[in-house]
């Protein structure tokens, strides 16, 4: 048949075209597929709270710098206190200060960073230099808490086997020695000697001991302070060290056992033996880090979009990137729906309701998405049954239903917020009109075909939502679709294929058993 030939040609084109586009992209940028794939972005909020008592108050912390390991893509400050950043030595100081600061002030400094894993291969046989540039003097010097000249440090160096050999082997020996000490979450500052004597310490004690031993061995070393990036809310910061090797500052974390490497979860905020926060005394200061993570297109992928640069568009218009991601994943969700309807033969309420609910559940998490859906449908069906009693005409009763969905969603959100179920509160993101229509269908199915049919369709809908959710939130698929949006053409090819697929649906093997002489 002509139509079939046409469809087959289209499918072939839709499969070849994206392959060519992807190939061209990689060739043009001379990059690996890996460089085009999306990256994990961390959105960090440094939240501070203070009581200014109506007087002048000042809080100083550090803002991250971009370097080989981390790239700051955006930053902003939120809150009533004036905020500024300035370069001071190696660091970027970030300062909130105000003249008459009231009590209970909350302020936030937010930034987004892209990070990468970094691993150093240290050359062997590099001798410890006899002299260093004058600028490194402070990275070799003893301080009150880094007791470089103590005989105990010298003894430890011998014990560790770090008193001779090339730079790499000395650093490895020091790292192994310090890492071997016990770890213990001490509060406050622990100096190098105390750490050595106790044989255990938290990250700052161990890092100071590392620095002291490295300096004693003639290798410049310094403390690095920052946070470990992980989704959630936390107050814990982290410290590690950097040692100077032939012009490079090489990271070591004796606390977590990273030698000459830094994982992408480490975010450096400052260098040197500094406190993360300094503030006017007596202001009842408090702080926390709030960290979220999301996948974003890589800088290379952004460039390859040319005039179709959606990311730039979303940036300009001020739409959140997550929305773009959801939009790009929606075709995949729709394909899942098509699969369930046309291949499995599962009945659902509303053709694409499941995909839309799954998309909305991206923000709430699946469980809460489903709970939200059930609560909302239940509420709306009850209203529908009530409206039925008034014998209203069709369109006005639908309008009431829509209003009921809006009201009920807001009510559920308010309630969820009041009892602290932040995720459930997000149900307000549900596609309202689609829900109203689905609830109407559920009600009609219940009345016309009985509760059994209605519940069966509802169950089918839930299963398809689950399928859509799994697919639309699959990290692998998001990586592919965000890195290579031309994959959407492949999805269209699949839709085309299923659009001409004449096979028997799974459910029809049950339904047509009588026709096929298979007697139950």
């Amino acid at each position, binding site marked *: 048949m002509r139509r079939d030939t046409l469809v087959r040609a289209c499918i072939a084109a839709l499969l070849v075209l994206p392959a060519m586009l992807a190939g061209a992209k990689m060739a043009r940028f001379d990059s690996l597929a890996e460089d085009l794939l999306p990256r994990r972005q961390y959105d960090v909020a440094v939240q501070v709270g203070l009581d200014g008592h109506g007087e002048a108050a000042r809080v100083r912390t550090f803002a991250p710098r971009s370097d080989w390991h981390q790239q700051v893509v955006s930053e902003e400050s939120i809150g009533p206190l004036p905020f500024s950043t300035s370069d001071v030595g190696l660091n970027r100081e970030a300062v909130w200060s105000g003249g008459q600061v009231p009590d209970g002030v909350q302020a936030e400094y937010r930034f987004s960073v892209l990070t990468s894993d970094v691993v150093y291969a240290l050359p062997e046989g590099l001798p410890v230099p006899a002299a260093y540039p004058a600028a490194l003097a402070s990275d070799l010097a003893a301080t009150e808490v880094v007791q470089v000249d103590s005989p105990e440090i010298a003894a430890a160096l011998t014990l560790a086997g770090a008193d001779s050999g090339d730079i790499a082997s000395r650093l490895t020996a020091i790292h192994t020695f310090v890492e071997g000490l016990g770890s213990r979450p001490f509060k406050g500052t622990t100096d190098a000697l105390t750490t050595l004597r106790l044989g255990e310490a938290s990250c700052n004690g161990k890092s100071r001991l590392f620095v002291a031993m490295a300096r004693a061995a003639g290798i410049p070393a310094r403390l690095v302070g920052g946070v470990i990036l992980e989704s959630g809310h936390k107050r814990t910061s982290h410290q590690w060290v950097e040692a100077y090797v032939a012009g490079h500052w090489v990271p070591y974390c004796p606390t977590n056992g990273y030698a000459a490497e830094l994982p992408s979860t480490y975010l450096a905020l400052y260098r040197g033996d500094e406190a993360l926060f300094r503030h006017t005394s007596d202001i009842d200061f408090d702080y926390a880090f709030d960290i979220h993570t999301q996948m974003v297109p890589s800088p290379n992928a952004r460039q390859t979009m040319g005039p179709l640069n959606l990311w730039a568009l979303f940036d300009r218009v001020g739409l959140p990137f997550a929305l773009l991601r959801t939009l790009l994943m929606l075709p995949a969700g729709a394909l899942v729906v098509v699969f369930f309807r046309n291949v499995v033969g599962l009945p659902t309420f509303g053709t694409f309701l499941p995909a839309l609910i799954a998309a909305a559940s991206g923000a709430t998490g699946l469980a809460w998405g489903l709970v939200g859906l059930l609560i909302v449908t239940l509420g709306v069906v009850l209203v529908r049954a009530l409206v039925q009693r008034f014998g209203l005409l*069709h369109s006005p009763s639908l309008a009431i239903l829509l209003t009921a969905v809006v009201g009920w969603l807001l009510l559920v959100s308010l309630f969820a917020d009041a009892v602290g179920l932040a995720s459930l509160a997000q149900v307000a993101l549900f596609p309202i009109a689609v829900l109203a229509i689905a609830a109407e269908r559920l009600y009609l199915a219940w009345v016309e075909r009985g509760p059994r049919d209605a519940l069966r369709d509802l169950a089918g809908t839930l299963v398809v939502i689950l399928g859509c959710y799994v697919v639309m939130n699959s990290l692998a698929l998001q990586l592919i679709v965000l890195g290579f949006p031309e994959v959407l053409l492949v999805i269209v090819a699949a839709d085309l294929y299923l659009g*001409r697929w004449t096979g*028997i649906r799974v459910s*029809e093997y049950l*339904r047509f058993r009588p*026709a096929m*002489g298979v007697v139950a």
Partner: protein
Amino acid sequence: MSRWSSLFGMNRRNVELVHARNPRRYYPLVDDKIVAKERLVAVGVPVPATLAVCEGLRDLPALLEGLADQESFVIKPSLGGGGHGILVVGERVEPGCWRKAGGEILDLEALHEHAANILFGAFSRGAMTDRILVEPRVTPGGVYAEMWGDGLSDLRVITLERQPVMAMVRVPTASSEGRANLHQGGLGLAVDLETGRVTRAVRNGRLISRHPDNGAQLEGICLPAWQETLDVARRAAGSVPLGYLGVDIVHDKDLGPLVLELNARPGLEIQNVHGRGLASFLEAL
């Protein structure tokens, strides 16, 4: 050919029959019962009389007034399907008050509300407005009355390019609440095209030999005026440029076969009634 490969599932029906033979632009010719009826009448196909057509709310008072002293009638949404919105009304209890087919009482106010809902498209597959078709209530004749008098049984003939391919009778039962819908517990009788003889009776996918309500023997019944009925089906199918149709025919006690409506997407349950896939019938053609 294996049995399953002779089966038409939804996908195959849509691709090979509906999309291939029924151009979408002609759907309105059958989806709108009033339009379809006009075409059927134009080519001389017998149909139930039209008592009234109501185009909008403005005509509603006149319609209700006209119906008030009717003994019995059927009111349908012109764009409806699957029996939705159809009221089978009669006999009359008093002026402006009737007994519905199920036995319930229907008064003028309820009729008014129902008619208005039809006009607002409540039963009309997504359309925003609709028209009302009012017909006399058909009284079945022949075996249709003797065997299955409670509700109105209808004959469904599947046609391909005007040729009848399969036929079945749908018989309402007590448990199907007067509806002939097969999913609702109605009976499906497989009819042999050559002879008009009932060859099998199926209920909920199971073979039965007798009517569950009155015990009447089902297999072997011969439908009345069979050649004439087939001819009506052929001519009805020829009235629209659609290649694949389901023709619904009832047997009036006085007028014989009457075409109720045409379906551009007839259901597939008929395969369960016959115990064979549609493809094996198409091959025999």
